[in-house]
């Protein structure tokens, strides 16, 4: 399917969903305060773009998102290289990793809030923790996919273990790492909004949604905030996909035809 056609079909799906929501609300099937018409929500969401305080809040959320995701990458990539390259270390930490990994990150919000107090520190820590895993696992997995023949070739030219890691394994793993970062970017956004929602302190998109909940007739504002969260996720994903296509064009012309795929279903549990 061409990308143009794909885009048009996606647009069609979105319009149909929009129309259904609008229709249900306008037909009076449910109360307005329960489900406002989609057009009302959309208009409110667009108006929010001119709301200084709201935009500052979104800025706070995005800053925590970027800090947390960056921190996760700084930890996960070197750790993944270590685990992937040194089997002894991998075996030693496997049990810890398998214990920590299935813990739902959202469940850690009260604990971390208790430990670090209410503030950006808690938010960034939780985001970093949750988005660590896809990057880590993709790095380890990508290392395992490195062609042994490419490694042998460099070794035969006299390159040492570390040089082979940096010149063959790391660049070869980069598309896998990037796919992991893309998955993590969505998880980080979920955690950013969720942490704000649950802790209810400071500014941010989550705070906006939390406060709208308590206002009379606040459903429209809650939904408008959700629309913003969704659009942010969409934009971030689009930017990352575009960057991957540009940077790793070589990996989409692999002789075996398949590019790296993101592993795991991390998004479902956060």
């Amino acid at each position, binding site marked *: 399917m061409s990308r143009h056609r794909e885009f048009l079909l996606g647009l069609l799906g979105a319009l149909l969903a929009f129309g259904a929501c609008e229709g249900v609300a306008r037909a009076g099937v449910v109360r307005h305060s329960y489900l406002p018409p989609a057009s009302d929500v959309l208009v409110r969401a667009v108006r929010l773009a001119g709301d200084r305080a709201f935009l500052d809040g979104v800025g706070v959320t995005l800053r925590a998102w970027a800090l947390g995701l960056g921190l996760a990458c700084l930890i996960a990539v070197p750790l993944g290289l270590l685990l992937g390259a040194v089997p002894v270390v991998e075996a030693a930490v496997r049990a810890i990793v398998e214990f920590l990994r299935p813990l739902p990150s959202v469940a850690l919000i009260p604990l971390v809030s208790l430990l670090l107090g209410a503030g950006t520190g808690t938010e960034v820590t939780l985001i970093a923790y949750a988005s660590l895993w896809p990057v880590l696992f993709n790095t380890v997995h990508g290392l395992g996919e490195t*062609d042994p*023949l*490419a490694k*042998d*070739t*460099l*070794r*035969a*030219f*006299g*390159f040492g273990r570390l040089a082979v890691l940096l*010149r*063959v394994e790391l*660049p*070869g793993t*980069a598309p896998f790492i990037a796919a992991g970062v893309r998955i993590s970017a969505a998880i980080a956004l979920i955690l950013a909004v969720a942490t704000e929602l649950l802790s209810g302190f400071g500014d941010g998109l989550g705070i906006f949604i939390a406060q709208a909940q308590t206002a009379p007739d606040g459903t429209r504002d809650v939904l408008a905030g959700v629309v913003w969260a969704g659009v942010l996720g969409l934009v971030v994903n689009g930017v990352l996909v575009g960057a991957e296509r540009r940077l*790793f064009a*070589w*990996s989409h*012309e*692999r*002789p075996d035809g398949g590019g790296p795929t993101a592993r795991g279903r991390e998004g479902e549990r956060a």
Partner: protein
Amino acid sequence: MLRLDSVSRYFGDHHVLDRISLTVPDGQLLCVVGPSGCGKSTLLRAVAGLLPAQRGTITVDGTPVTGVPDRLAVVFQEYGRSLLPWLTVRDNVALPLRRRGLGRAARREAAEAILDRVGLPGAARRRPRELSGGMQQRVAIARALVCRPSLLLMDEPFGSLDARTREDLEDLLLEVHRDEGTTIVFVTHDIDESVYLGDRVVVLSPGPGSRIVRDLPVGLPAERDQIATRGLPGFVALRTEVGRAVRGDR
């Protein structure tokens, strides 16, 4: 000089090489031929220091091979896997020079010169996967030659190329060998190719436990030609002899 002294190799219980002894004088182009799975590649990897020989010794210029020997280069059959797809052709070729302490400009210059030499002027800025198989293997050969190796190991380098490309690359190799005087160990399962290229042909027996069953000098004129040489009575006789040895006939 490359010297193998009673080299044996096992993978678990599987006996691959059985007491291989061989001396390759400097500048010789030695072809190692044998049926598939006879341990030719294992032999080559042992010489490259990529697999330790479990019994016996390998020396290059008198130094025992424990790690990868100095001034060694390899060309594998699978060019698509051994070239780095994210680097340009030029950077792939220049890569071995990083260990020679050359600056970036000097590396690029050397890479472009050697690309000219293998008949790929103008491919420097492209990426390996934009090129045909034959061109990619030329890149791999250029990369192997760029640091002027004293020992060049080639593992069925032309095995996956079409006949015409293969002939062109065989002649390129002969030309390089004549000009540079590099010692070359060339592994192939193609009997004609071994006789056409080699100064000497060594035949391995089928595994398990491959041994050297024939060691034949190739007494053909140094100047070879794809059509004329292959028609020479000497070529035909030698091809027959190597063929029999590979099949295990006495």
